């Protein structure tokens, strides 16, 4: 898929710019691609401006602003997919997916199966995890729900390059994909991105940093404090960092390969730790590497609390808390004990 231009012609992009660019390319490649969402048309071009210019370039027919009707945005996308289109639905904050769960879970995820394979609904749902300054109803990380739902794919990139390549893969994938962005990264993370069409396949983790003492497995926004923590521990503990990139499919092989070397792993994520993605990764790793690990696979996810508004209270992992979690695991390693008994 990587075209000749894409290899040579690159540009500094934010994650938002990468999304806009991916959508622009997809709209250009295939007229069955359409976009639906609140406020997505120009002049505003989306509350995050991720669709800026697209309605002007590709027409208001294909880049359609809707009323405030999340469940019907998704239902309309599913219907349009059943009618042969490849809709991308933008739902601002992921929390608002709560309004649309019926269409996502009972319809998009099951349409292919319930029809005996005849009626696939390949939609892409783009939604964003907000920031605590919007409070508890605009900052939830709900990827665990969608991982737990057969029929969906779940993607959560951490940088502009992956964002563009994964979004293009998602749009042209024949299965419904939940594509999760992080508001905190939208403008702050920049990187060189090929301007042409290229794809990052779903289901391939990337090893962002090599290390020999411990493997840190993460994805989405938590990649950045994780990398910073690994950096900060340089010289003290050698940390390998894996960015999962997609959660369904989940590239457990890359994790197994790494942890079979390091024999220690920690899964870091912004969603609630209890019954979350880290439990799945930990259970699979334990199963594959039983008897060979130095310590149990650790998890470092969000506290079992709603997200507090006060920015003095941290419910999700930070660089400091990740460093502390890594050190705790190391400590446990040293004394061979359950952390609570240290």
């Amino acid at each position, binding site marked *: 898929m990587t075209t000749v231009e894409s290899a040579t012609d690159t540009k500094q992009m934010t994650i938002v710019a990468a999304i806009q660019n991916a959508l622009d390319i997809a709209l250009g490649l295939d007229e069955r691609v*359409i976009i639906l969402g609140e406020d997505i048309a120009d002049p505003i071009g989306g509350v995050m401006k991720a669709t800026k210019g697209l309605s002007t370039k590709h027409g208001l*027919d*294909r880049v*359609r602003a*809707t*009323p405030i*009707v999340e*469940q*019907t945005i*998704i*239902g*309309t*996308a*599913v*219907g*349009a*997919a*059943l*009618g*042969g*289109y490849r*809709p991308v639905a933008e739902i601002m904050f992921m929390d608002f997916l709560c309004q649309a769960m*019926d*269409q996502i879970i*009972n*319809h998009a995820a099951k*349409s*292919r*199966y*319930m*029809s*005996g*394979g*005849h*009626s*696939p609904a*390949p939609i892409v749902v783009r939604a964003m995890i907000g920031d605590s300054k919007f409070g508890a109803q605009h900052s939830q990380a709900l990827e665990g729900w969608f991982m737990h739902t*057969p*029929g969906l*794919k779940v993607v959560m990139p951490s940088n502009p390059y992956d964002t563009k390549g994964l979004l293009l893969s998602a749009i042209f*994938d*024949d*299965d419904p994909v939940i594509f999760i962005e992080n508001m905190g990264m939208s403008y702050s993370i920049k990187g060189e991105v090929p301007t042409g069409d290229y794809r990052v396949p*779903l*289901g391939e983790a990337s090893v962002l940093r090599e290390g020999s003492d411990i493997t840190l497995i993460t994805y989405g926004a938590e990649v950045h404090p994780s990398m910073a923590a690994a950096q900060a521990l340089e010289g003290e503990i050698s940390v390998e960092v894996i960015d999962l990139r997609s959660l*369904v*499919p*989940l*590239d457990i092989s890359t994790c197994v390969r790494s942890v079979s070397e390091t024999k220690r792993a920690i899964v870091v994520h912004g969603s609630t730790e209890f019954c979350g993605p880290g439990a799945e990764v930990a259970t699979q790793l334990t199963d594959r590497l039983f008897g060979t690990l130095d310590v149990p696979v650790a998890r470092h996810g969000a506290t079992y609390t709603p997200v507090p508004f006060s920015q003095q209270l941290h419910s999700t992992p930070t660089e400091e808390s990740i460093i502390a979690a890594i050190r705790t695991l190391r400590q446990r390693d040293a004394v061979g004990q359950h952390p609570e008994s240290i």
Partner: protein
Amino acid sequence: MRGKVLPVHEAGHDAMTNTLPDRAALEWMYSTMLLAKMADERAADEARKGLLAAALYPVRGLEAVCAAMGVAMAPQDQMVSSYRNLGDALSRKIPLRAIIAEAYGRMGGTSKGKGGTMHLTDNERGLIATTGIVGAGMPLAVGLGLAAQLDKSDRAIAVTFGDGATSIGAAHESFNLAALWKLPVVFVCQNNQWGEHTPLAEYAANPNLAERTAAYGLHAEAVDGFDPMATLQSIGGALDRARAGEGPSFIECRSYRLTGHSGLSDYSYVPTEELAAALARDPAPTFRTWLEQNGHVDAATLDQIEQTAVETVDDAFAFAQQSPHPSPDELMADVYASPEGVPTR
């Protein structure tokens, strides 16, 4: 609490004479009403005998609406239906064999037996989706309407749902969006006066559903759903407007539920006079009388249609019962188009 339900319309069949379909269509309508009625009753029978383990939602009372739909819709049109879909499926000319085989969970079913009674689909024949979630079909129809509009096609979309479904948020969101975008969607409300065990007047402050929906800025009308010709005219008109780019319509087909809500469920709570009045207008027999008395179809032909219907129902159940069960590997099939790397448990 138990309020008054809307009276079953007493109107005669005056409208029937206005736009008379040709004889073949009339015969097809009668046959479809019969098939719906008889297949329904047969399925309940099999369930009662413990030979059919499926959720069943009888269409008794809606036969005229479904038959009218079948004539009104063009082959390229698309439909979204609900769990109460037997008549709708017949209106799309889906073979009764495939419908019944799905109820038996067999490979010969519309969905290889993996969807079940609530989830018949047949893309080729334009039954695009059926949903078991009350009201959820309306957004799907909006999406199909959008696709039809973007395609600049002459497709219209009909979505069927019950009176109770008009309570749910998705209905309101869909009415507004379809009207706003002038989509070629016809919202066909199969008002059988009951949502499960609750009558319309107990769950709607304004039980005039057409009036309520008109406020969204779409064309809304109510029609006597026991009158197949009047219903045909209403739905046909709505489909024509949809195709002409005149936007969506809401057609409230006022009928009455002639059975319990589901397969074998209790119906003792229904007011007896109401049910008796509705049964007096039982669509298939009433239609036969009308066809015969007005000389549209002769008695011998009608007898023949009835005979064929009996055979078709027998054949469909025999087919279904002999159709193979899905093989164990069907469990994991059809979850994804590209399942590489996806979990299996």
